[in-house]
């Protein structure tokens, strides 16, 4: 929908929506040196994900995986985060948008608020928090790691404003705060407003509106969440009892024609219901029963089918294929009665449960719809932003891109892919901001402290009353002054205020301090700030140590001031002893080569290559076969009816003609060395298969998957047994043959969801329905049977399933243990299957048996590449990304990215999005001239190393190796900094910088001296 023009007038991107998609997009943009204004309409960023307890498929705790991302977004220099802010008006066009923003009053000065919570303790009624079951929410920050890390006041609910203002020792409460307008200019816009949960109160038969124990899945997440209203205790809202029998009802409000419901599939609900059931089972094992009522189990994503199998087989989650029509309260037992029917019976079944969870899906909020109108972005019939098959994140309006659930319902990994893709597209429209070098230039030179005697400065924050209210901060500072090597010790009030930071800086310079201890809050949140302070004062930033005397002392020992005081002394003593042994460290910084290697010349590889080359990078595109295009060369139409071949012709032409792309067909990778940013890869390349080495900074794997050809149902032996891919071609080339068919049978899940290939191939249900609809267009009288296990037309693809049913395609379900039987009798194909509704065998003679075989990983190629590049793969031979949830494009080793079906099966549209995202992630890395890997890496003292291999075996990332000189070597560029090797090294030849053994020992000595 959008051209290739680039605009240079304005280098800011407006990102609308501070959920996980918006944060990812903002971070990618900032990393690639674009200024970002990130606006969020609620009081802090994080969106829906921060309300979840855990996420599938890893069942990780969400806050742990999310909070590093959030604090990064709050810290980043190029990102301005405006909470409680929305778009009021927008005019202009791509390259030159003028947007009027409106910010609601927070009544809190973000600069001054220390998030101490005093205001909340005394005036809880001023809280404005509602992520579901809000009445018992612990704080009015939405979650403990909220960014901005500050409270918000609902002034209308406050009875005594003067008292409230007095409560805040930081003076952060602003009762006079007002709505603020602001105009900004932006070159492009990324839309990430997310979706809202369907209001199930409208579905009266399910009882959410009247029975407290009927809750939505999001409310269930809040109950399970450790930061939720019940502190993670699983209790029934009605009586506080622990439920013993819980039912999940899928598709509550989705896949329905009921009023208040939507007709599409909400994509993620099957997985989150399975997750909730598994997490529940994990906690309570056999003392709880979990049942999921579903229509089709849609576990189509990467490794999701194995997740389903684990839920069924290992966790005993009960799965019932049925859609309960009514939930009523049993007047005698107070529990909830579910009424449903099953295929096998013709009567109503009633079963009682203690709690019913409605798997409520997503819908576009009125707010997002209004936003689309303000921006002039077209919506589809379900109110999601309209996008194009071959330009998946571009909206109808040039310069505006979309990601996440506002594009269509989806889960987190797909949101992350789209976010990176949208960020990349938005960044292409604008120019890079000149390097923020002025910040670096202003820094004084780093003083060499190696010859100086240790001179420690101790600064104690009282954090208002948070620390000072319980212990005497002045006395603590006096005590610290008596410790060895401490030259100055002071109480400094709020240490993190810019005023105090300036004071600390001044004292460091004046007194020529060379070590600093901060007694205050947690280093997790504030270490970076104090490191900056040291650097600005002209000493190495790693010479600071924080003693956590707030979060881990005064806040948890408020019942015993004496104990808290003596613990604070202990913590200060430990920090002083340890910091004395710290020494200046250098961040590992490498300059990088900016050329790009893309492996695989299919639709994903070509899109990645083109995106990178258009951005100005030199790209080597390596393809093992003789021509570009991959499987897409065999696909004629998408399910939406778009012509794939004309798109491919254009794409191939653009790639081969591009001055910055070198296409190497008939080429094979043979070796690889180097580190991120400085790779060397060897290939043998046609025509003579000579060896050639390419130097490059990043590697993108787009090696695709194979069209599966399993030995099943006489495939390959009879010409009227074909795959969906063959049918796709037949529909274009042999229409006469199609017209001659009277009966066609399609069988789903051939060669997938089976022991040999456990996971779902994702695209087969779509291809079957696509081809069925096309057959009916050519031959409306044809009788089409689709024999399936679960129809997985996820998201908005549900529309096509509905249309196919309306047009008379007959869908018949079969069970895995009773697959259809195909006999060839005198060259005639006869398919026999069980009809579950009639409960009897049916035989159909067919002119064409069409098998949905989908895609399968290219085992040979993945295995070779994983060995050569030393990157991991999944058990079913797809590349394994760094984090299945939050980093679906980055591989675990920096500098490696994956795109397209080499990651997992997906549609062309999804491949293109991931290709753009991979280009975006690579672009982030290549936007810098150097790569900073921090200082926390392991290093080996070679004289001590006995080459015993223990470190080699223990490293989770396979980094250490025994080098040619016979001792172990650790590449700092690859080291993740866990320190496991240092802990197991019997010779103590390995030290992890920042956490060296003598520092740990010094802490122990500092703590325990005088104990004896």
């Amino acid at each position, binding site marked *: 929908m959008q051209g290739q023009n680039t605009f240079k007038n304005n280098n800011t991107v407006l990102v609308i929506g501070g959920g996980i998609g918006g944060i990812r997009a903002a971070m990618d943009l900032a990393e690639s040196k674009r200024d970002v204004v990130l606006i969020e309409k609620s009081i802090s960023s994080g969106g829906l994900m921060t309300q979840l307890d855990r996420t599938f498929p*890893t069942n990780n705790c969400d806050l742990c995986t999310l909070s590093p991302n959030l604090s990064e977004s709050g810290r980043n220099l190029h990102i301005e985060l405006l909470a409680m802010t929305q778009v009021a008006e927008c005019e202009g066009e791509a390259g030159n948008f003028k947007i009027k923003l409106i910010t609601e009053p927070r009544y809190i000065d973000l600069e001054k608020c220390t998030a101490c919570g005093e205001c909340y303790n005394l005036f809880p009624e001023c809280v404005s928090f509602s992520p579901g079951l809000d009445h018992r929410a612990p704080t009015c920050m939405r979650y403990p790691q909220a960014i901005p890390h500050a409270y918000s006041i609902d002034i209308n609910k406050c009875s005594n404003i003067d008292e409230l203002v007095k409560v805040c020792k930081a003076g952060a409460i602003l009762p006079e705060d007002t709505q603020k307008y602001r105009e900004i200019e932006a070159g492009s816009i990324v839309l990430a407003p997310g979706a809202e949960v369907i209001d199930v109160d409208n579905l009266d038969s399910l009882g959410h509106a009247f029975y407290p124990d009927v809750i939505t899945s999001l409310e269930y997440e809040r109950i399970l969440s450790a930061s939720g209203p019940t502190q993670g205790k699983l209790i029934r809202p009605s009586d506080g009892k622990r439920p013993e029998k819980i039912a999940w009802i899928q598709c509550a409000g989705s896949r329905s024609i009921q009023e208040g419901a939507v007709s599409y599939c909400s994509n993620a609900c099957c997985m989150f219901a399975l997750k909730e059931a598994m997490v529940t089972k994990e906690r309570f094992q056999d003392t709880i029963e979990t049942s999921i009522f579903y229509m089709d189990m849609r576990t189509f994503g990467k490794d999701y089918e194995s997740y389903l199998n684990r839920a069924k087989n290992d966790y005993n989650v009960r799965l019932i294929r049925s859609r309960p029509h009514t939930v009523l309260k049993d007047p005698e037992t107070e529990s909830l009665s579910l009424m449903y029917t099953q295929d096998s019976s013709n009567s109503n079944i009633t079963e009682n449960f203690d709690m019913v969870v409605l798997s409520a899906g997503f819908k576009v909020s009125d707010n997002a719809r209004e936003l689309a109108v303000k921006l002039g972005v077209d919506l589809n019939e379900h109110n999601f932003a309209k996008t194009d098959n071959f330009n998946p994140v571009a909206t109808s309006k040039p310069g505006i891109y979309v990601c996440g659930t506002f594009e269509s319902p989806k889960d987190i990994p797909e949101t992350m892919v789209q976010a990176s893709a949208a960020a990349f597209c938005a960044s292409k429209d604008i120019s890079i901001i000149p390097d923020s070098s002025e910040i670096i230039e202003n820094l004084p030179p780093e003083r060499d402290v190696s010859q100086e005697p240790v001179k420690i400065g101790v600064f104690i924050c009282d954090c208002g009353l948070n620390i000072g209210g319980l212990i005497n901060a002045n006395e603590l500072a006096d005590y610290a002054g008596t410790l060895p090597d401490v030259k100055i010790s002071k109480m400094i009030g709020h240490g993190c205020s810019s005023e105090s930071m300036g004071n600390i800086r001044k004292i460091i310079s004046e007194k020529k301090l060379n070590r600093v201890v901060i007694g205050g809050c947690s280093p997790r949140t504030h270490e970076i700030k104090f490191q900056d302070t040291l650097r600005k004062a002209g000493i190495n930033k790693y010479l600071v140590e924080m003693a956590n005397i707030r979060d881990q002392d005064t806040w948890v020992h*408020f019942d015993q001031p004496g104990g808290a005081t003596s613990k604070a002394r202990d913590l200060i003593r430990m920090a002083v002893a340890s910091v004395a042994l710290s020494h200046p460290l250098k961040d590992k910084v490498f300059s990088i080569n900016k050329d790009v290697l893309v492996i695989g010349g299919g639709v994903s590889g070509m899109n990645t290559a083109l995106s990178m080359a258009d951005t100005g990078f030199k790209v080597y595109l390596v393809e093992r076969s003789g021509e570009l295009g991959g499987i897409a060369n065999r696909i004629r139409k998408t399910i939406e009816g778009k012509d794939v071949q004309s798109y491919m012709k254009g794409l191939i032409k653009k790639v081969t003609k591009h001055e910055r792309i070198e296409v190497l067909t008939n080429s094979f990778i043979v070796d690889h060395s180097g580190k991120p940013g400085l790779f060397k890869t060897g290939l043998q390349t046609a025509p003579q298969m000579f060896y050639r080495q390419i130097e490059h900074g990043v590697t993108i794997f787009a090696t695709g998957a194979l069209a599966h050809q399993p030995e099943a149902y006489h495939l390959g032996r009879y010409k009227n047994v074909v795959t969906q891919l063959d049918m796709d071609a037949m529909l274009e080339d042999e229409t006469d043959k199609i017209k001659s068919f009277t009966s066609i049978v399609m069988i789903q899940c051939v060669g997938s969801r089976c022991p040999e290939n456990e996971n779902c191939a994702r695209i087969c249900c779509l291809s079957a329905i696509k081809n069925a609809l096309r057959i009916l267009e050519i031959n409306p009288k044809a009788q089409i049977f689709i024999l399936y296990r679960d129809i997985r037309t996820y998201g908005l693809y549900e529309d096509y399933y509905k249309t196919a049913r309306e047009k008379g395609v007959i869908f018949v379900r079969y069970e895995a243990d009773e697959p259809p039987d195909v006999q060839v009798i005198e060259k005639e194909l006869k398919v026999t299957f069980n009809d579950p509704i009639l409960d009897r065998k049916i035989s159909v003679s067919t002119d064409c048996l069409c098998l949905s075989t989908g895609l399968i990983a290219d085992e040979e190629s993945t295995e070779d590449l994983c060995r050569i590049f030393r990157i991991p793969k999944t058990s079913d031979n797809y590349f394994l990304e760094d984090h299945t949830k939050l980093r679906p494009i980055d591989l675990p080793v920096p500098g490696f990215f994956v795109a397209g079906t080499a990651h997992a099966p997906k549609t062309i549209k999804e491949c293109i999005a991931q290709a753009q995202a991979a280009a975006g992630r690579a672009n982030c890395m290549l936007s810098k001239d150097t790569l900073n890997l921090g200082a926390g890496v392991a290093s080996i003292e070679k004289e001590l190393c006995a080459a015993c291999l223990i470190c080699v075996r223990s490293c989770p990332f396979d980094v250490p190796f025994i080098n040619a000189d016979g001792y172990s070597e650790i590449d700092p560029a690859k080291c993740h900094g866990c*320190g496991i090797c240092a802990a197991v090294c019997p010779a103590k030849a390995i030290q992890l910088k920042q*956490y060296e053994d003598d520092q740990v020992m010094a802490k122990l000595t500092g703590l325990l001296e005088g*104990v*004896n």
Partner: protein
Amino acid sequence: MEKFEPVIVAFCCNYCAYTAADMAGSKRLCYPPNIKIIRVPCSGKVDAIHIIKALEKGADGVLVAGCLEGDCHFKNGNIEASKKVTYIKNLLDEIGIGGERVEMVLMSAGMGERFAQTAIDITKKIRVLGPNPAKSFTPDKASNDL
């Protein structure tokens, strides 16, 4: 004699346990101040010698706290740490100090309650066990090096 106040060293991994301890703070959950936390990047970084030295120097108990199984930021550091703790417990049993003075716990960053409860439980336990017997026979304070 004064009432016995045990000193307990808690090695907490940065990603989960240390964050959980901060979370206990945000929620103002009370636990005994006997617990002193040493931050490590990963529970797998905790060396057997660190635990032994802590006891030798006079700590009455040691806690190693890592991420939940499967949640380790470094894949399996927590599992490695658990193995090490089991090994040390056996060793301490053998030499008569008692393996129950060392404990490994797993928690996610959101589990402030679990951190607080663990702190309460281990303090109670060590109080019952009484002072570390190693304290009476290690006058040598110079054993600082490894």
